[in-house]
């Protein structure tokens, strides 16, 4: 077997600048795309649940198209495809203090659009899980749709949305590797660049796997905290009652179950 421990430990514990830059890109792209995708997903979910067909139908088509095609295809299509057809060519944007390269813009856009379709379905399920009586009570108090959505329905939907949202972000951290095909030097492409010089594929891919594992594990802790915070409307009584998952299943806030 040809395996050099020193190589493995060296790259794991003292990563080079290329690696650190890749790690930073992976993290920042994930956060941005997840944030934008969640926001966009919210509006698509609202459109999808609208009683107006002009909103409902485009939302359905959007979700169908973006969930039904591979993310890798979408990435290449948006960056290379649109340029090849002379429809849109991404250009580097210079902010003075930093430059946002063309391929990174396209990559973030593709991840955002894709994520929005998945988040739309997750948020829709969250909103649908809130008891219809909540809307009726809000309306009877003179609240309009934007107000009761923001103040009453969405805070309760968050309970159902947060756990799958955490899983989505876990997936997002790993999906950023697909951006390597359009030349974004995130963690995987950074690794490939180093292996092409050193030929230490086994060691270095093991290192990059450890990096992803660390990221997703750390995120797991954050997710637990988020779920603890959004999962319980009040922490005091919850311990006496059925486990959160069970109550979530039964629907929360209705009198019968809460005795």
């Amino acid at each position, binding site marked *: 077997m040809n395996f050099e421990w020193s190589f493995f430990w060296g790259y794991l514990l003292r990563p080079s600048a290329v690696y650190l830059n890749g790690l930073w890109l992976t993290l920042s792209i994930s956060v941005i795309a997840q944030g934008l995708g969640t926001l966009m997903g919210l509006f698509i979910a609202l459109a999808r649940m609208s009683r107006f067909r002009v909103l409902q139908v485009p939302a359905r088509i959007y979700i169908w198209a973006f969930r039904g095609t591979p993310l890798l295809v979408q990435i290449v299509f948006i960056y290379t495809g649109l340029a090849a057809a002379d429809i849109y060519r991404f250009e580097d944007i210079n902010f003075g203090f930093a430059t946002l390269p063309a391929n990174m813009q396209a990559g973030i856009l593709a991840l955002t659009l894709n994520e929005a379709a998945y988040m739309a379905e997750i948020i829709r399920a969250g909103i649908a899980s809130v008891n219809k*009586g909540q809307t009726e009570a809000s309306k*009877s*108090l*003179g609240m309009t749709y934007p*107000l009761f959505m923001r103040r009453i329905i969405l805070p*309760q939907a968050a309970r159902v949305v947060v756990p799958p949202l955490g899983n989505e972000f876990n997936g997002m951290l790993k999906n950023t590797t697909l951006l390597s095909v359009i030349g974004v030097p995130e963690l995987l492409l950074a690794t490939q660049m180093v292996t092409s010089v050193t030929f230490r594929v086994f060691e270095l891919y093991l290192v990059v796997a450890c990096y992803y594992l660390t990221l997703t594990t750390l995120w797991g802790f954050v997710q637990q905290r988020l779920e603890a915070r959004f999962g319980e409307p*009040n922490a005091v*009584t919850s311990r006496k009652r059925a486990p959160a998952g069970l109550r979530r299943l039964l629907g929360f806030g209705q*009198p*019968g179950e809460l005795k």
Partner: protein
Amino acid sequence: MSDEHSASPAIVTARGVEKRFGELQVLKGIDLTVRKGEVVVIVGASGSGKTTFIRCINHLETIEKGRIEVNGHLIGYRERNGRLVEDSERNIARQRCEIGMVFQLFNLFPHLTALENVIEAPIHVRKIPREEAIRTGRALLARVGLAEKTNAYPSQLSGGQQQRVAIARALAMRPALMLFDEPTSALDPEMIGEVLDVMKELAREGMTMIVVSHEMGFAREVANRVIMMHDGRIVEDAPPERFFTAPAHERTAAFLSRVINKHP
């Protein structure tokens, strides 16, 4: 119509109200006038349309024919070229501010404390300053006997307590009319009294109330008029003494004997 209120202005005027759910016609022409300060209790078998009717009064249900006015405002619709078209969401919301509603399953907001439930709409709909809303909210919770529960979440309250918070929440909007949709039906027997007491107190203070309920004792004691609905129509509309002792309609007599045999 009870004599003591016959000179008072009408708060609710319903004329020829018809409503259908698909093939099923649930309201077949309802005419009803409720005057300021009156307490009207609506009884009837399930499926008679009583709950649907009061849900039409604040436009939680649309109607196909007829019109409903509250405080002189046409509810849910606007007249255009002699026809009624559904009003804008904003206008409907404004009309609903005048109409408090208490639901069978309370429908408190589970992520907000009792006090937060009560002040939510006054602050965000009526635009009342927060301090003032809190002061009024505390007073209202004290009035329904829950001064110590202001910071409790709905899940920490009993059914009766939840329903009293719901009443306080509706009152916080200073409505001209209160609708009660079977307010005690989901409660354990020992909690029914505390909710009815709050409602009786409210009636004594002169609140105009329409109550869908099976509580015959409450109807007998508090109502100015008791209304019997059957198959989407009002078949009896009488003061309680006449309603319970000499009902004009055979349906009422049959209903009363059934209910009274069940709850002696």
